[in-house]
């Protein structure tokens, strides 16, 4: 199965991609982030695989819900999941 990953606003510019479709099979967000962290810019802005931590200011939503309110990095991704990464997210 595949899921869509969206890199919003400035992050999309920085990473050089705004949307990716990746194949997953009952994988957690952590697994996806580790794969994506093979890109240096992703490591720098989004996820530190050594510390297993999101960078400051990063917000991840799964189908519109913040992963802090789900199982955080252990949230399991299912078919048609829409995973959105914000850096930063604020008002205005």
């Amino acid at each position, binding site marked *: 199965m595949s899921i869509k990953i969206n890199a*919003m*606003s400035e992050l999309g510019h920085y990473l050089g991609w705004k949307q990716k479709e990746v194949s997953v099979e009952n994988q957690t967000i952590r697994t996806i982030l580790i794969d994506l962290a093979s890109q240096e810019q992703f490591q720098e802005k989004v996820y530190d695989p050594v510390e297993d931590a999101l960078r400051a*200011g990063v917000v991840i939503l799964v189908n519109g819900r913040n992963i802090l309110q789900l199982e955080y990095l252990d949230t399991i991704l299912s078919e048609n999941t829409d995973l959105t990464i914000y850096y930063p997210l604020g*008002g205005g």
Partner: protein
Amino acid sequence: MKGYTGKVARINLATGDIKREEISEEFCRNWIGGYGMGIKVVWDEVPAGCDPLSPDNVLVFNIGPFPGTILPTSSKYGVFAKSPLTGLFGMAISSGSVGAQMRRAGWNMVILEKKAPEPVYIMFDNDDIQIQPCSETLWGKKDSWETEEWIRHHYHDERIGVSSIGKAGEIMVRIACLTNDRNRQAGRTGMGAVMGSKNVKALAFRGTNSVEVAHPKEFYKKGKELIKISMGPVTIKYRDLGTPVNVLEFQKLGILPTRNFQSGVFEHAFDVSGEKMAETWVVKKAACSQCPIGCDHLVYIKDGPYKGAVASVDYECSFSVGSNCGIWDMPAITRAIELCDRHTIDGISAGVCVSFAMEAFENNVLTPEQVGYDLKFGDGDAMVRFIEDICLGRTEAGKIIGLGSRGAANYLGQNSMHYAMQVKGLEMPGYVVRGIKTAALGFAVAIRGGCHLRNGAYQFDIKGDFDRFTQDKPEERVKKIINMENDYALIDSYIICKFTRGIYKNGVDEQAEVYSMVTGIDVTGDDLRTRGAAIHNLAKCYNLREGATKADDYLPERDYTDPLPEGPSEGQYIDRDLYTVMLDAYYSERGWDSDGVPTQETLDKYGLSSFVNLDDLHPIEERRYMPCL
């Protein structure tokens, strides 16, 4: 005492009498500036129950201790009065050059009393104050952009800071604002209508005095550090694509107001997004005085029917006259914002009033005879035309909607209050709170009405502190809201831009250090937090005195009854009973009774009892002002 000038100009417009007064260190320590000083003067000097458009209302312009220094984003000023839109405390804050010029001219505060016998503008040339008649030159003849240009040209000085009204202010449209530096507005709660009611077209400031701070070496070092941080990651959003990036971000959350808040997703969101704007429309970025960020993204329309339209397009206007009116025609959106800025109506209220009118039109509550043409969602040309009708008061519908959505719904009846998207009479900003339920309370209890700037409670929802779809943990949510509300009361009193709130790593404690470095007044973070709470409590007392009730702390009816029909927040609505639980928890945590009235202990705690009488605070509903034709 440094930082502050300590000088107040009290101008009786009826007689032309000008008094130069001093403010004490104690007054500055207690009320800080901006919002704090504004509410204290309005409380003391506006008679209870007065008509906000009568000469009895006062109009206060003020600054805090920081304009003219190197502190980032500190060239701000505030305008305060009883609001003719809400009938409660009115406040609006703007940036640009006016704050710095006012400080250099030597004025901490200007209090306008009564009404001038003929239209005037007031020039503050350092210590010299001139009240100049302008019925032959400006009033009824020039919009705010032209007024600013005329005054600068007349005095041969491009640096003069000018805060002025256009036609909408002159004819007292209830959502009228003040414009300065073309793109900056003291937008909300109808302060432009109060200025118009006093026959004042503009205040202009030219200052050439230096600004002294108490501890220059320490402050210089600190200021440079803060400037550096403010050019870093914490403000990248505002510098890069600007606040219109919210369009797609909020779309992903399902909270982008669409067609008068009927939906939280807009099928043409990309066309009004920051991304599309940057690719296609933005020609220049600009910054206010003393600001290293530069959040103004200027759009210029090069061809087509709106050729020549130019405006600074931010998120709040992208949503209000864009998605919220079902419109993705960027040239029409740009022209609409330009009209709002020139004629001086608040861009948020304008868009939400137009969307209210569109829904009323589609429901046959507002008739084609009253409007004069079809006013339907998605019609950019009709939206532009209707904005102008509101500004100029030139049709029956324009006059009705110019009362604001609450006043218009009250006039039109037929259940239109159900979809008047306002709280306390002030139109809601660009967040569908059905999908962010901490913000639902935060926006509803906001002291000036539907507002995202008195507490940024949406942050707790979208950053994941709470489940944005539930209404659980009321005590935890209200504590977060109240702490932020007190901190924001300080930010609005210093006055600094909220876009730099993130540059202070230690929050209010660090701001206290800066305050002491500039003013020489020793304060701690806890001292300031107490003053933030005191300022908020006094504003609440003012609203109660003017007839506000618990009902004013509830959301628009639609939020309780109309679940979102689609998108990531599909099915979300506000459960009224759970909302009341949270509201009661908020009142309790604030030290207010079940009607939202501060207790005697609370008044004592914040030092308010010496001038606030508890007996005056129990809501007197008949005192509540309602805008009417």
